[in-house]
């Protein structure tokens, strides 16, 4: 059944007029403003070194971390796209003649322009170095993404000088993300969680950190479609649907981790009684009478409501209206 506007039977999809005006304004203003900016003149960069990596390795050749670059895809000369098929170290770090050159007595060595301890380039500028090669399908939604707007740098997550970049490996990815997303450390260490703390799942199993047009930077076009990749048994469609299930799994589940089995937001029966208050047993507030010994509440213990209503994601049984079959 397609949702229709009751008046004229046309689908109700509205495009705020102010949005269209805003887009026109952006197009006109941006063009004029940036033309003026580009006239302001470019910064003068230092020169490149005379011999490229051979210059850099005179000082950095003993640094094991620097040398691991040669174990990585960035140092494959036969692939003409890679830094070492071109300006070598300076492809990414910027022209290094000042950094590698003679330093006057008592003066501090100028830093390398990018990706160094005291490099002057901004995060945005450093990101452009990476995007100069990596502006591809995996990164096409970077502009305007949550990470881009929060000035997250590529190297805040990626370790380029490493045989295995920790953020690219399932087992070692989560600690990198948790450096900023500290609040998720609690969730993944909760009593019930996805197997992230065991290194069996990575954050990128569900999220796309390079940007996505989907909610919460998910890999699927909605929460549910993301969950269905691994939990297709809940997809249906079912004959008898449980409507919040079809809309959003997170109405009942806390995917990062929870104190409750099945990563539920709350324990039944209270979980269910947020939405169900009907004559007889669904409405009754269950108490601790009978606990811990004696006749325990039959609607409380073990799975509570789910002891009977076990088809909570929906049922395809002809008699499955109460989700018990």
């Amino acid at each position, binding site marked *: 059944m397609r949702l229709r506007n009751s008046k004229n039977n046309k689908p109700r999809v509205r495009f705020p007029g102010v949005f269209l005006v805003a887009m026109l304004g952006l197009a006109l203003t941006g063009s004029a403003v940036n033309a003026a900016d580009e006239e302001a003149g470019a910064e003068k960069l230092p020169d490149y070194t005379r011999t490229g990596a051979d210059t850099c390795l005179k000082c950095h050749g003993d640094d094991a971390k620097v040398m691991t670059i040669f174990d990585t895809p960035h140092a494959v000369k036969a692939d003409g796209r890679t830094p070492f098929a071109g300006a070598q170290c300076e492809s990414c770090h910027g022209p290094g003649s000042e950094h590698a050159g003679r330093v006057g007595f008592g003066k501090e060595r100028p830093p390398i322009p990018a990706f160094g301890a005291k490099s002057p380039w901004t995060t945005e500028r450093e990101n452009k170095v990476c995007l100069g090669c990596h502006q591809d399908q995996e990164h096409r939604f970077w502009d305007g993404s949550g990470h881009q707007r929060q000035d997250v740098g590529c190297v805040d997550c990626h370790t380029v000088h490493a045989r295995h970049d920790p953020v690219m490996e399932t087992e070692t990815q989560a600690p990198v993300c948790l450096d900023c997303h500290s609040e998720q450390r609690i969730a993944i260490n909760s009593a019930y969680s996805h197997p992230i703390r065991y290194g069996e799942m990575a954050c990128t199993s569900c999220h796309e950190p390079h940007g996505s047009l989907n909610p919460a930077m998910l890999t699927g076009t909605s929460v549910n479609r993301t969950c269905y990749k691994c939990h297709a048994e809940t*997809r249906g469609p079912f004959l008898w649907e449980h409507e919040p299930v079809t809309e959003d799994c997170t109405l009942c589940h806390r995917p990062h981790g929870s104190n409750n089995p099945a990563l539920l937001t709350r324990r039944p029966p209270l979980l269910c009684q947020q939405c169900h208050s009907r004559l007889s047993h669904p409405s009754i507030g269950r108490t601790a009478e009978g606990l811990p010994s004696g006749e325990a509440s039959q609607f409380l213990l073990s799975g509570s409501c789910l002891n009977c209503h076990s088809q909570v994601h929906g049922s395809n049984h002809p008699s499955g209206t109460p989700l018990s079959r």
Partner: protein
Amino acid sequence: MAMNTNNRLRRLHRAMGALLCLALSLPALGREADASKATDEPGKAGPDTSQWKCASCPFASGLSGYLGFGLGNVSTDFSEFGNFGGLEDQGLYGAFDADLLYRADDARYLEVQGDRLGLDSRSLSVEGGRQGSYSLSLDYDEIPYIQAEGARTVFLGAGTADQTLPEDWVRGDTTQRMPQLSSSLHDVGIGTRRKTLTLGLDVRRPDPWRYRVNVQRIRKEGSLIQGGSFIFRSALLAAPVDYETTNVAASVGYEAKTWELAAEYDLSVFDNGDTALRWENPFTPINGADQGQIALSPDSQSHQVMLSGSWRMPRWLTVSGQVAFGRMEQDEAFLEPTVNSSLTVPTLPRFNLDGQVNTRVANLRVTSDLTDRLGAKAELKYDERDNDTPIDAYRQVVTDVFVTDLVSNRPYSYERRIANAGLDYRLVSWLKVSAEAEHEEMDRTFLEAANTNTDTYTVRARSNPLASLNLNLKLSHSERGSDLNPALLGEDVNPGLRRFYLADRRRDMGRLDADYALRDNMVVGIFFEKADDNYGDSDVGLNGASDRNYGLDVSAILSEKVNAHAFVAKETINSDITGADIFDPNDLLGDPWRAEENDNFRTVGFGVEFNQLPGKWTRAAIDFTYADAKGDILVEKSEETPDFPRLLTRRYTLQASAAREIKEDLDLNVRYLMARRDRNDFFYDGLQPDSVPNVLTLGNGLDDETVHVFSVMLRYSF
């Protein structure tokens, strides 16, 4: 309600218009050209590298990596510890891993990585090809999952689709009146093993075309707990899990310098090896219901075609978007409405559901760097679930006991529309502020609220007033309204009920985080987050919820060879729910009660890494994590009631490892892992199969345990 919605929309439009007018006029108010911006990027006017020999560069060539093999020992059975990790059984296990890389001079490569190869949580990854041209990949991993430990059942064939009672079984009205119960119990393992195999092909020729295909097969086998009931009597069963999901993603893309376009097709096929679970009723049958049958998840398919892309004008405008059309289908043959032979089986209106849900998604984002200081973003999102499943009336047989009314199915549909606009402005070099407004409309079918609308306003500030200090602040306010009509709640439902995801809601959220470099080698981070939901119009249901979350972490480079980190984090989640005991259909307001559910989480940890130790010890690490979660449930009624016991899970994990060089290409790796879990959960503690009179449980209690794992591995490097 519709009038209020329109007024709010008009106010939002005016606010968005004012924000945008301000933004568009800011450049005219006089801004300084940022003299520090650079337009000359490396490579544009690049160096002459023809004489750059790279003589000192040790390019990888040939085979390198390591193979590891050894033994480990688990001190005791501990299912929680083995959960996902594969170390649940006491005894010896083989420890194998591998990390191999072959590179040829012509950019061909082969990479093999294997972890925990001797355990049920093994993973293997193989990738090869020619870098920049094509790659083939194969990934395999297993995830074990244990749902219940110490479970016991009376059913024969537990874990299969047909579960029967012992021949000498005597049925009873309650579990205490089943004389054969104790003697019939036997252990049953309840859990699953998930095996995922993924094959991938990625071709980048001819440039700039790119072709990708991924085929993934997920096999999940085992059993999970499912309740099978007859009116108010239920038996918990080990239901079979025999799932196979095949996901195929195929795409073709074009990657130009300033734009990309890709078309993708996604297919998902779910196949369940079992269509139904049949079991014998262990209780005294009512109305001849001596067996029951549950419909297990039906086979289904999902298709989606998507077109997506982005286009970047130099710097000032980026447009990205995606459009996707999908369909979910399910046409598995219906089971019989009942297996109770003493009832007249109702006629079905159709043989299968012929279920079909069409999905449509359209997202558009426009971002613009209007000036070096001012950025803008606007988004439109559309998400529709259009359920075209036929509607029919089905005569219900309630839990195989009695025949009742005709009920029509309700194929739920929804349509979600979101408009979002935001501005980022760098006031000074060390301070950037952002403001964002979003309006969401959602229409739903068959529910008491046909429309909900939500307005959200967010402001952010990012500041680094010192080179060593970063501060982030986010404040957000959201209000949701709806056209909820209580008359549509349904028969015998409390008219004061407001389902929380449809109810009017006010949400306020704030977050502050800071990172401070105490010294060059030490960084401290703190965060504090607070969120409050208020459902002011909800007499029954969720009234309010709050979340408080804060933490501190420290990382330090103590010396050239020693790194350390430590963290502490705490979260508190509180919920208030009100309800009413309804016994009389003429008094649906009932006797009110109130409940609180409070969850407290705490996580503490520290770790130290040594990159060089005395003698031939090459590296070592120690890592400790403590996590506890407490849950308190309080229910207040007109009469006094006792408190619920506290829910508690406490987990300690200590990991230590060290590596010693035996020869130039041979290392000895030693690992020790200690884990302890304490758990109090009154829902399960002390629960025997006959503890609850009308529920035959599995008696899966949760024991506290400590486990020690010690492993020794030789790693041969080359």
